[in-house]
Structures are given as C-alpha cells and as structure tokens.
C-alpha cells in the first residue's frame, strides 16, 4: 500500500450553514482555553463533543484512555452529530477548536498521532476566513468551510489567524480501520504551497528584478521591511522576525565558514 499523504481532502463534505447554526447555540462560557499556553498566543479554546467519560475538558485527550463518550452538547447539535455519525470507524475525542482573530498556534508536532500508530485526526472547518494560514511542514494548506481533511499532524505544523473573524474547526480523532484507510486513500492529496522566508529567498535568487531592488537597500531595517513586503506581494508569508533570524544565522555561518 502506498504511503499515506501528509494531507488529503476527503470525499466527504458538509453544509457549513448547518454547522454554523449549531455553533451559534454555544454559550461564550462553554469554551475552555487550551491548557498548554506555550503552544499558542491569543485565544485557543475548545468545546468537548466526545471526551474521556466524565470529563468535559476538550483539550485533554489522554492516549491511555479508551472510554470515550459523547457529551450532552453533541446530542443537542444535530448537524455536528451528522458529521460525527458519517465516520464509520471507532472515534476517540471529538471537539470544536476555536482560534480567535489575531491568535496564533506556534509550530509543534502531535506525537500521539500517526497513521502508523493507528490514531489520526480529521478536521472539518466550520468557520474560517482567508486570513487563516495553516502550515504543515512550512507548506500552506487552505481548508474551506464544510470540507473534510486528513492531516498528518505528527509533522510540524502551525496556524495563524490573521483575519478578522474566528476560525472554528470540528476536530475528530479516529482510530484507523479499513473504512478510514480507504477513504483517506481515495482523498485528494494536497502538497500545499511553499511559503515562508526560505522559499522566498530561493525565489529572489532566480529573479534579477527582486535582486536589484533588495540589493539597493543597505539600511538594515528598510531592507527587512521591504523583504517582508515583497514576500507578501509574491505570495510568501513571513515576518520581520524570520528575516532577522535568517540574517543572524547567515552571519554566524559566514563567520564560522573556516572552522572545521
């Protein structure tokens, strides 16, 4: 059997309007912040729809537990329930995860997930916006409302919501079975688009016009600002900190080039 893709859009889709209607029923006090504040900046929180029996903490998906149960909330949200019921495989935790406008999930890997481990995570975007940027191994993957995605989150990934509205995904943790294997295999694999500073750097090396413009800037901060700007204009997303970091690393490498 071929290697599973890093990301694939599955041949399942759902009506975003219905899912959003369910979402609207939730009270603001139902969202529980993610416990690991080292992972994010801003507001990253969730609502449990299926969790370790007796726990309503959506962020806590202990791999050692096997006794997951639907929460009452799921019973009340029929559109969400229909999505969950479409999965013909054993389910573990199911939750809504919300990243508010301006919030960022830092790059990390989820080591308890993996195709080989038999535990995979499915995302169904319910509410999102074009300013949401999700990167899997530095490649941007755009997921639209109502779509259904398999993602290998054992690989490094990060999210930033640069838009002005919240991003809410239905996140379903599944145990692999034949049905799920087949549906992942029949999905549309996505390579994502290269983004970030390093691909832009390579692009500049191929483009005499970009070289001309950037080489004329000898003032460091003007150079950094323009690099970020030209990156955006050409579809590469990175921040001034990325350029500063690259410059520091480049200086160090250059100074150490004679050291064995």
């Amino acid at each position, binding site marked *: 059997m071929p290697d599973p893709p890093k990301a694939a859009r599955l041949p399942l889709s759902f009506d975003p309007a219905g899912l959003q209607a369910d979402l609207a029923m939730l009270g603001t006090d139902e969202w529980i912040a993610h416990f690991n504040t080292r992972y994010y900046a801003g507001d990253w929180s969730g609502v449990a729809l299926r969790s370790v029996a007796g726990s309503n903490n959506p962020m806590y998906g202990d791999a050692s537990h096997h006794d997951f149960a639907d929460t009452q909330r799921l019973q009340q949200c029929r559109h969400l329930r229909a999505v969950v019921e479409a999965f013909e495989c054993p389910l573990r935790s199911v939750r809504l995860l919300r990243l508010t406008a301006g919030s960022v999930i830092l790059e990390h890997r989820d080591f308890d997930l993996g195709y080989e481990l038999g535990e995979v995570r499915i995302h169904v975007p319910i509410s999102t916006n074009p300013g949401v940027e999700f990167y899997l191994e530095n490649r941007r993957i755009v997921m639209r409302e109502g779509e259904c995605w398999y993602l290998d989150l054992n690989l490094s990934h990060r999210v930033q919501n640069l838009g002005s509205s919240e991003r809410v995904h239905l996140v379903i943790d599944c145990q692999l079975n034949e049905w799920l294997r087949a549906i992942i295999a029949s999905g549309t694999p996505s390579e994502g688009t290269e983004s970030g500073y390093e691909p832009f*750097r390579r692009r*500049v*090396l*191929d483009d*005499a016009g970009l*070289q001309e413009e*950037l*080489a004329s*800037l*000898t003032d*460091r901060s003007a*150079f*950094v600002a323009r*690099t970020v700007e030209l990156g955006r204009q050409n579809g590469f997303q990175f921040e001034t900190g990325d*350029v500063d970091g*690259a*410059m520091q690393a*480049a*200086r160090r490498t*250059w100074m150490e*080039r*004679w*050291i*064995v």
Partner: protein
Amino acid sequence: MSKTPDLKGWLPVSISKHTAEPVVEWCRFGTRRFTESFFDHTVQNAMREPFNLLFRHQTSLDTLVDWQMKCPGMQPSGFIFHMSRCGSTLVAQMLAALPEHIVLSEPPPLDAILRCDRRGASDAQRIAWLRAWMSAISQPRNGEQRLYVKLDAWHTFDLPLLRRAFPDTPWIFLYRNPIEVMVSAMKAPGMHLVPNLIDINIPGIEPAAAQHMPQPEYIARVLAAVLRCALQHLVPLGGKAFDYLRLPDVVFTDVAAHFQLTLGADQIAAMHAKTAFDAKTPQLFFEPDALIKQQQATADARALCAELLDPLYKQLQ
C-alpha cells in the same frame, strides 16, 4: 546545485574547504572594487550588507567551468609571488590604485582550489577550476581591463601548476633581507609559519618534525623553502625577482616593464600616493622599519638567518 543560475553580476568570493564537496559561494558584488589590502577584507565589507548576507548562490566547482564558457572574463596580466613581509601588499595596493585594474590580494578561493589536491583532484582538474575561477572573479564591472593577483607566500610551492594554468601570465617574486622578515614573522607569524595550521606540504620539512621544532627555526626553515623554490623556478619559468630595497620605484620601471604595463604621469602619481601609507593598515602612514627590525633581531634569529637564509638571499640578489 543542479541547474546553473544566471550568475551575471555575481562573484565566486568563497570556496569551502571543510565540506564534503567544495561549495562555491557567489556574492552579488555590484560595482564594488577589490581595493582593501586583502581580498577577504573586501568580501567581509560586502558581507555587511544585508542583501549579501542573505542572498548568495551556492554551486559546485564545475559550475565555475560552465560559467566560464558562457561568460569568459580576463586572463591575469601579472602574478606577484613573495616570501611574506617584504612589500608585496604595497605592490598590490599600488596596482589597485588604478581603476582599470582588478587586483586580488591573497584570495582564499584560489588557495581552496589549489588545496583540492588533498581531495584527490588531478592537476588537470585544478587547472580547469583555477582558470574558471579567475574568469568568473575578473568579470569587468567598472570597465576594468587588467587583472593582477598577489598570491599567498606558500603558493611559491605551487608555481609550476600555476604556470601551467596561466602560461602567458608574467610573474615576479618579491623578497627582503631575511633578518627583517624573521623579526616581523616572529612577532606575528603568518598562517604558513605555524606548523600544520594550514594543510600544505613544505618541501624539506617533515610534518612530524615540525611539531617539535622551536618556533624561530620552523619559521626560518619555511622561509628558506620558499626562497629555494623561487630560486629553482625563477629562470626556467621566466620570473623576475625584486628586492624590497628597490620598492617602490622599481614598480614603475622593471616591474611595469615585466608586466607590459605602460604608465602615464597621472597613473604613476596615483600609484605613488599609495606608498605614503602603511599597505596593510592604510589609515597609518608608512614608517620605514628596516633598521628597527635589524636592531630587534635576537641572536637566535641572526644565527638561523646566517645558516639557512642569507646564502639564498645573496643568490636571489
């Protein structure tokens, strides 16, 4: 490293020695000239610019050869070999005073190519890379017409290969009263005067013996090896040797003649202006130091000179 990028306006300013394969680093140099006392000082200055720090092409040595075919540069018009601490930087600075000259002073990439023998590269391979590097680095960016290269002192040992690579390039060898060179070298020895600091074979010195040799003796023996090598090749390989004592005036006469360089009054004035300053620290005025250096010589250094160096010095004179 697969496809050859468009390297117009880029110069191969560095070649790595410690990587699995040599990596050529290309820097976008604009109209910047090599006017600092040493090639690497100019490169370091270029590398202060954010663009150069972040954007460099990295290629294999063979890309140099491809690029030479697409975009040939200049043949060197003169090589300056030397025994170190003998005015070679001054001569390079004088030549660099003229805007129509590209002058490369002890360029490390050239050394990196020569030292590819350590990786098992054949002479033919090294010759091809040397020619290709010279062609790429000498792309005129300000209408320059002539290229001069001042080599590292230990490249005197590589004279036969360099002659094969550039048979039409005239070369000179600069030397100085050995006691003055010894005093200068003992204060701050050049890289080739510290045992095994750089990976070269010194003819006549066993690397194992070098480790146990007192520093003054090692310096004297390396200097002697350089002088002996220059003497050996001078006539057969068509070089001319010049004593420090004849600097700077000899540059305008015999050196210029050997390099087939015709100088006008303005050019001589521009070159002469350089002689007022210390060649390696141009912020300082030049101070004659032959007498001071002779007075500072230890008995040890004098004895070593008398035994190992003075006879070679007399022969060169």
